[in-house]
């Protein structure tokens, strides 16, 4: 069961039970909905992007598994206050780590993302971890389509 403990680390269980920045962000000026039709995960992400391109507030609501919910929660903590460009860069490294494309270590300030590294060994769950991130990108693109992990 050690591999399960690695996938479901304390931090993931904690964030899934008490997600940070959960609840509709009333002040948002960008939003998007994401879903994973294969497992039914659904997430709404809201962002307040300031005029100088900083993601000053991020909120979300989700009906989703622990990995997806924790990923969304940690996303909001990680990206809040970051410039949009920087956020995109972090998305790229998160994405390539959980899909197993890259095994580069995160810089110290992103160490929290490390808890999702184990996901790469569970192909059907990778989408759970990436859905919030794809949804955020969708919001930033100001696209009206739903994000989807198909």
């Amino acid at each position, binding site marked *: *069961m050690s591999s399960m403990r690695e996938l479901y680390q304390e931090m993931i269980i904690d964030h899934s039970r008490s997600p940070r920045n959960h609840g509709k962000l009333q002040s948002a000026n960008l939003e998007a909905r994401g879903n994973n039709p294969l497992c*039914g995960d659904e997430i709404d992400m809201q962002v307040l992007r300031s005029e100088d391109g900083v993601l000053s507030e991020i909120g979300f609501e989700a*009906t989703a598994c622990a990995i997806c919910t924790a990923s969304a929660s940690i996303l909001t903590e990680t990206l809040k206050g970051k410039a949009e460009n920087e956020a995109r860069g972090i998305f790229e490294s998160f994405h390539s780590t959980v899909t197993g494309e890259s095994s580069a270590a995160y810089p110290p300030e992103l160490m929290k993302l490390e808890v999702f590294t184990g996901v790469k060994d*569970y192909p059907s769950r990778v989408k759970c971890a990436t859905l919030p991130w794809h949804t955020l990108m969708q919001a930033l693109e100001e696209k009206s389509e739903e994000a989807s992990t198909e």
Partner: protein
Amino acid sequence: MANPEPLNVSDLQRQFPALDQQVHGHRLVYLDSAATTQKPQSVLEAVDSVYRKDCANVHRGVHTLSERATARYEEVRKIATRFLGTEDSQEIVFTRGVTESMNLLANTLSGLVGGFKEGDEVLITELEHHANIVPWQLLSQSTGIRVKVLPCDDACELVLDDLDKLVTEKTRIVSVGHVSNAIGTMNDIDRIFSAARGVGAITILDAAQSAPHMDISPKKIDCDFLTFSGHKTYGPTGAGILWGKRELLDQMPPWQGGGDMIRTVSFEESTYAETPWKFEAGTPDIAAVIGLGAALEFLDSTGRPSVEAHEAELLRMIESHLMEMEGVQIVGKPATRACCVSFTLDGIHPHDAATIMDQNGVAIRAGHHCAMPLMKRLGLPATIRASVGVHNDQSDVEALIQSIQAVREIFA
């Protein structure tokens, strides 16, 4: 009724090569037969021998391999006829499975009712699989017919008292699942179909989740059409059966066009082959059909009353274990159950549970089970579903329960 012979489960287990493997260091415990069944050795051999010995196209060949392939392919119509307890093997149409059968029916039944008109109705139920919903929705878009839905109650039993209200002169088709793949409810088909017959509606049985578990003879279940998928009946992927009354099939137009379904083709006009060949356009899935024949013979040889009794006992065991566990909610309380038990764990999403259970070698399904409308009715995004097959036994039930305990430990 006398008790049926008990199943020789350990003998059956040995017939399934795929069960003899480890998953994450544990014995594989396969409780996902409702998604697709494992295949017995005899099915593997049937498929393999087609390619090793009798590999040829069917129907048009004079040479030996083609004659052998054609004979084996057509023989399966007779096997299926025996399996269904019917007489006329030309009533057996080979399709890819229930989904293709339903699409075929949705596209050809207009030939029976003299065309659909606005106001006509198709009745389905709230328990249906998407395969018995979406084809009718598509038909509704192209013809204006309405899709009506017989609701279910909190126990996931159909509300049969609503039948009188819903089955009317406008009802042209009543298409119902025999056993719900999401919950395990066995529906009172007799009552539903007799209401349908009362108004002259065409009756269709989705037997996807009953064919592997019980006798589905159309002589007992009085219906016009019946369909099931081979891959859920211990057969290969790619072949399923659509059975229909001969006089109805004869009146229906073909659906797909191409080789094999024609009698003559000219650029001015084509004429079509007889039932059932007019519904089988192009090169069929020869190997899968032949494998399906072996699967039906396998299932017949186990004795279906024994299968039904054995599986009912397993489902009872699973239910009673789950009821004893704290924080476990069984979804639905059908009066008669077959196929599966669906449940949720308090505070734990089914997908997380499924991953951890898999880590313990236990294969179950977590999700909406292609029954999204039902899930919405129940207010659930997903459930955990344990479904049984002929090879499952008490030790599988115990492994299931232990794996649920493991999930709860992780989330403790």
